[in-house]
């Protein structure tokens, strides 16, 4: 029987793929951090009633959640230079990775604004009223009462978004960035098509390990933040088997 599949190739391609791993992590981290910052004003704009801000924010979130990430990447990559030309800015010299970071920032900010919104609404409004009634300023009430509880509620969902963001950055190669998928495609062409599936299995394994590491880090983060906020976390009796609990996926999480 001829040998079609070469398991050793998985290991040799892993070495070459590792060189692109920092790029993926940096773009994912930057996009997530910027997205977390950007999501706060979007969430607060959505919760105002019947104003231009809330309509704009709702439209933005609906558009970002309703269009594929790949299409958004192309829109930003091809469209942002055209758009900025109107203001006289010439950004044709920008690095492609900046476009990717901008796209993923906008992408994560839309999803995270929904997370923030649901966490905010999940905290009992009576607590805010009580805090205000004993003389706290709105800022004090937000920081001391709402924020710790909302943070605990939001953290698992933020974690899921983080894992989703890492997987979403796999699309960067379509605009020519040499990330994990880009190097995998280069490996395929360099070996004249001999090493094809093995390279992508290696890429998948790297993402697996990344998800496990991020999942474990998130579990640790949840416990630490819980202690800091003084809230005890009641974990439901989760009998999902050892594979599922490793990645730290939460119930109801969805991919992409």
């Amino acid at each position, binding site marked *: *029987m*001829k040998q*079609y*599949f070469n398991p050793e190739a998985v290991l040799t391609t892993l070495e070459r793929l590792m060189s692109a791993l920092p790029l993926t992590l940096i773009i994912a981290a930057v996009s997530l951090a910027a997205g977390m910052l950007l999501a706060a004003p979007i969430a607060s704009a959505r919760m105002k009633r019947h104003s231009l801000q809330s309509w704009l924010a709702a439209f933005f979130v*609906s*558009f970002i*959640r*309703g*269009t*594929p*990430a*790949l*299409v*958004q990447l*192309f*829109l930003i990559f*091809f*469209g942002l230079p*055209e758009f900025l030309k109107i203001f006289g800015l010439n950004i044709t010299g920008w690095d492609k990775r900046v476009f990717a970071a901008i796209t993923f920032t906008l992408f994560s900010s839309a999803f995270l604004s929904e997370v923030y919104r649901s966490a905010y609404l999940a905290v009992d409004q009576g607590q805010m009223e009580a805090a205000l009634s004993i003389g706290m300023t709105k800022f004090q009430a937000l920081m001391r009462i709402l924020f710790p509880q909302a943070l605990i509620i939001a953290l698992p969902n933020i974690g899921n978004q983080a894992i989703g963001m890492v*997987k*979403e950055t*796999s*699309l960067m190669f*379509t605009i020519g960035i040499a990330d994990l*998928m880009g190097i*995998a495609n280069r490996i*395929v062409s360099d070996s004249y098509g001999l090493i*094809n*599936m093995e390279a*992508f*299995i290696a*890429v*998948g394994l790297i*993402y*697996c390990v*990344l*998800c*496990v590491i991020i999942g474990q880090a998130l579990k640790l983060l949840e416990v630490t933040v819980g202690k800091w906020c003084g809230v005890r976390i009641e974990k439901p009796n989760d009998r*999902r*088997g*050892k*594979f*599922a609990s*490793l*990645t730290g*996926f939460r*119930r*109801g*999480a*969805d*991919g*992409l």
Partner: protein
Amino acid sequence: MGFDFKFFGNMFLIVLGKLPVTLFVAITSMLIALVIGYAVDTCRRLQIPVLKQLAELYVYLVRSFPVIVIIYMIYYGTPVFFATLNDAFGLTLPESRTLINPYIFGVAALSLNSGAFLAEVIRSAMRSVGKGQTEAALSIGMTDGQVMRRIIIPQALAAAIPNLGNSFLNLIKATSLVYRVTIIDMMAVATIAAALDFRYLESYTVVAIVYWLLCVVFEKLFVVLEKSASKYKKPV
């Protein structure tokens, strides 16, 4: 070079012409994924020894892999798979990527990906139906099949539909990636038509609008589905 509105308008007809391709890939993948998800969940629920571990491994792996990686793996791996099948069983399946219908790559990859997520959705939906109901139904003499059909599945379906809708919307967005495995869908025609004039922004804007409208329509559809599936909850 500003925004070419005439080109923008023309692209709508071209892109919408390939909308059936996207819908076909999405709906077929969803149906197969439902079957996969239900099978995986059944293996876990009934605690079948080897299949349960395999099912958990499948869900864990596929949820960690990005969709594009799965698509490329199926694209490059299917000829290899067919070749080994040919050697083992003496079949005459095509062994070259150009001879295999590209829809097989797209539908297989997307249904495998969604199947893992649907397994989790179905699992949580089945568990949301109380165990007491199964016991009560069995105690009045229903068979296992009747319990499933009459008691568990209707309630699980009502609980699952919001998450199923969410998964389906993710699936529709994932179909934007299958043009890379030579399926001529909306993204493919947008890229090809745009390359003639270098009008990439206009064609991708059209694609974005079509996907967005598609998602809005299906969102509303799933709300209607959920209402009709929850009819049994009305107080008597």
